[in-house]
């Protein structure tokens, strides 16, 4: 237990001494409620839904409302439960492995997300570095300017790029007018457009953790290296970059994990020619109305992401420890 916690515990014990048992009981109940209310909420609305997704991914598609054959209810007592247990099938999963479409979608999503994450890091690092070295007076304003686009709608920011990237769009108009190109570039409805969309939308998520890691850095280390004859590039790779590594890891995870399951960007900028798993899940659900298969798609996607999510959580916990 930390020192602060010990002091807090002793002082609250001292304060408790003068109180009636009833008041203490009341406070204990309040203290419990602080934990119990959000806990139960998240168990009910976050944890249990995953159990249901898993359950339905094992059921059969049916033409009904809701469109799946019910499984694992306790309606018919324990014997009914066991009878239903036999009906569970992994058909949906076999289906996913047999159809190359799904495997392709998973692989493409991971590759696209990984490339986008690297690109976001390459774009975001110089920005965060410049912000961290800006005069202290300017830093809050710069920080605010990075956060502000995050407050404007994600959908709108993605939509704005359609007008820029389409064949008769603003980018092509500019490039044609300045004579850089003679034929309009086809960018919209390609993977390039998806990369641009992800880098653009997720840039603040990368810059913020990088900035907070770089801002804490002690620049006299760089100066010491310079005095000792270390060239700037190797000073960067030997000192700055390793020290900013926690920010790099947090930023990359914050971009990579949601990007794998991204729907809006591949749908609006990627068109029908590009394949990503978030879009596949959406189409299974809304166009094909196949709830069991979309559940199976979700389960596999979650399994793919479970390691990065746990890494993210560990990074969060470690950052929290350091702040204390």
């Amino acid at each position, binding site marked *: 237990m930390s020192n602060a916690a010990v002091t807090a515990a002793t002082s609250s014990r001292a*304060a408790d001494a003068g109180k009636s048992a009833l*008041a203490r009981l009341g406070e204990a109940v309040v203290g419990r409620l602080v934990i119990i209310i959000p806990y139960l909420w998240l168990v009910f609305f976050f944890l249990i839904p995953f159990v249901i997704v898993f359950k339905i991914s094992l059921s059969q598609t049916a033409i009904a409302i809701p469109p799946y054959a019910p499984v694992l209810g306790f309606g018919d007592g324990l014997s009914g439960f066991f009878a239903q247990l036999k009906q569970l099938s992994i058909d949906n999963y076999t289906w996913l492995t047999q159809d190359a479409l799904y495997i392709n979608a998973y692989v493409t999503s991971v590759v696209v997300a990984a490339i986008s994450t690297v690109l976001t890091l390459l774009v975001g690092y110089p*920005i965060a570095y410049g912000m961290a070295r800006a005069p202290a007076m300017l830093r809050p304003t710069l920080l605010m300017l990075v956060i502000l686009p995050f407050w404007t709608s994600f959908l709108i920011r993605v939509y704005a790029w359609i007008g820029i990237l389409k064949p008769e769009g603003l980018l092509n108009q500019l490039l044609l007018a300045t004579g850089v190109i003679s034929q309009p570039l086809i960018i919209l409805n390609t993977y390039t457009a998806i990369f641009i969309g992800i880098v653009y939308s997720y840039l603040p998520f990368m810059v913020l953790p990088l900035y907070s890691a770089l801002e804490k850095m002690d620049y006299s280390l760089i100066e010491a290296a310079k005095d000792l004859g270390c060239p700037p590039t190797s000073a960067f790779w030997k000192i700055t970059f390793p020290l900013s590594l926690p920010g790099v890891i947090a930023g990359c995870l914050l971009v990579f994990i949601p990007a794998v399951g991204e729907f809006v960007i591949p749908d609006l900028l990627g068109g029908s020619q590009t394949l990503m798993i978030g879009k596949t899940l959406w189409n299974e659900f809304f166009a094909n109305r196949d709830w069991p298969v979309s559940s199976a798609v979700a389960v596999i996607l979650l399994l793919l992401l479970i390691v990065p999510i746990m890494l993210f959580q560990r990074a969060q916990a470690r950052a929290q420890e350091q702040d204390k």
Partner: protein
Amino acid sequence: MNPTWSRFNITSIVLGFAFLYLPIVLLVVFSFNESKLVTVWGGFSTKWYVSLFHNQGLMDATWVTARVAVISATVATVLGTLAALTLTRYTRFKGRMLFSGMVFAPLVMPEVITGLSLLLLFVAVGLDRGFLTVTLAHITLTMCFVAVVVQSRLITFDRSLEEAAMDLGAPPVKTFFQITLPVIMPAIVSGWMLAFTLSLDDLVIASFTSGPGATTLPMKIYSQVRLGVTPEINAACTILIAVVTVGVIIASLANKRREVQRQRDEQAAQRG
């Protein structure tokens, strides 16, 4: 000038901000375009704003979205603050690992998974899809963001203030409302605003969990965007951007004034 701020640093910041802001600026500019072609300038006009206000479907969706956002942000702020208190104050209880996992995972969870799983829950418990289900879904998502924002303030909170109050005989609940809450209030306010804009913004989770009669603005915008870019949508987006920008600026100014006031109080206390 700061000697460490090199030309390279300044260039990367200028280019970075140009990249961040240019698309939004262009979108706003072309909402005032006379021509129906979104990317060809045909003169200044506000006619798309006028036609926007006559678009009943869009107006209904705006009203639904605003109500969902206010209700869900408010409930999420209460739940998120409780979750933040749990995370920072109760360091050891059974299932703490699970709890922090459930708070952090939704932050990065792909929205299609969250949306699908919540929908299947609502179907399983027999809740009709509509206004209520969207609101419940948004509470669940946004309370985690509130928890993170409030938690970061609680970590740096000087607990000796609370201890002093309790040593002077204030019961914990009263101490919370009179000492802790005012200090962490700025974080709670920005948590609420974050929850509000996230709810305003959400397309994927709303599409899964909403039903007939509860079409939200992003769903409406999305269905029109799929048919092509129109100046009317640009106008709707511009209004949304303006509302959010003004809100954020007001909030940050208020925050700054409170901060200045607090510093003045502290100085006065030291002198007195």
